[in-house]
C-alpha cells in the first residue's frame, strides 16, 4: 500500500440499531489490507467508543479514517452540545448518559478512557453549543 487511503462515514444520531457499523466496516477493511490484529483491535475499539458517543451524546456526526502503512488516523466530528469540562469527561466513571441509554449497557463512563488507552495520540477539541472533534492516532 503506497500513500494514504481515506474513508468517510456519516454517523446517524440516535440510531442504536446501526450504531457501530462504521467501526465494523473499518475493522474489515483493515483486515483485508493486512494490518496486524492488535492494531486492528485498537482502532476498532477506539473508533467504536467515539462513534457511540456521537450517537448517544451528539445526535450523530462524521468519521474520517486516514490509513497509511505506518499509522491510522481517526477523526470524529460532531455538531452536538460539546463537552464543558474535558478533564472531567476523561475520568473513568464520569457519564451523563440518561437512564434509557444506560439500560442498553452504555453509560459506564469508560468510553473516552478506552479511546485514550487504545490509541497512541488523542486530542479533543470541543466548544459548548458548537460541537466536538476528536483526533486519534494508532501507530502501526
Amino acid at each position, binding site marked *: 500500500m503506497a500513500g494514504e487511503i481515506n474513508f468517510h462515514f456519516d454517523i446517524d444520531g440516535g440510531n*442504536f*440499531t446501526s*450504531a*457501530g*457499523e462504521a*467501526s*465494523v466496516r473499518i*475493522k474489515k477493511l483493515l483486515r483485508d489490507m493486512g494490518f496486524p*490484529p492488535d492494531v486492528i*483491535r485498537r482502532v*476498532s*475499539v477506539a473508533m*467504536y*467508543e467515539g462513534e457511540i458517543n456521537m450517537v448517544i451524546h451528539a445526535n450523530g456526526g462524521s468519521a474520517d479514517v486516514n490509513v497509511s502503512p505506518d499509522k491510522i488516523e481517526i477523526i470524529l466530528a460532531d455538531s452536538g452540545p460539546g463537552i464543558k469540562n474535558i478533564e472531567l469527561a476523561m475520568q473513568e466513571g464520569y457519564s451523563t448518559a440518561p437512564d434509557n441509554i444506560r439500560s*442498553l*449497557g*452504555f*453509560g*459506564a*463512563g*469508560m*468510553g473516552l*478512557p*478506552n479511546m485514550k*488507552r*487504545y490509541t497512541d495520540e488523542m486530542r479533543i477539541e470541543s466548544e459548548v453549543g458548537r460541537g466536538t472533534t476528536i483526533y486519534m492516532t494508532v501507530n502501526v
Partner: protein
Amino acid sequence: MTVEMLAKTADFEPIYIADGEREILGGYAGDLLSWVMGRAKEGDAWVTIMSNVNIVAVCTLADPACIVLSEGVRPDEEALRRAREQGVSIISTGLDTFEACVRIASML
C-alpha cells in the same frame, strides 16, 4: 474447549453458532459495554445478561469467541439478525452469571 463444545454442554443451549470450531481461551463477565470493550480479550467467552443489538457490535469489535447469555436471557430479534449477519456466536444458559462462569472456567 470450542464454542460448539460449550453450546452442547448440559444447561447451555446454542442460539446461533457462527464458528463452532473456534477455541474458547478464557472468559469475561460484564454488562457495561465499555468495560467489555476495554477488558474482554480475544477468544473469551463473554457472559452477560444484555440482550440488545449492541452486544453484537461489541463482540464483532472486541472479538470474544462467543456471547453467553446467562439467567435464561434470549437475544432480542434485531440482535439475533445482526449476529447471523456478522457471524457472532450466541449461547444461552439458564445458569446465573456466577454459575455460568464457574462452569466455563472448569472446562477450559
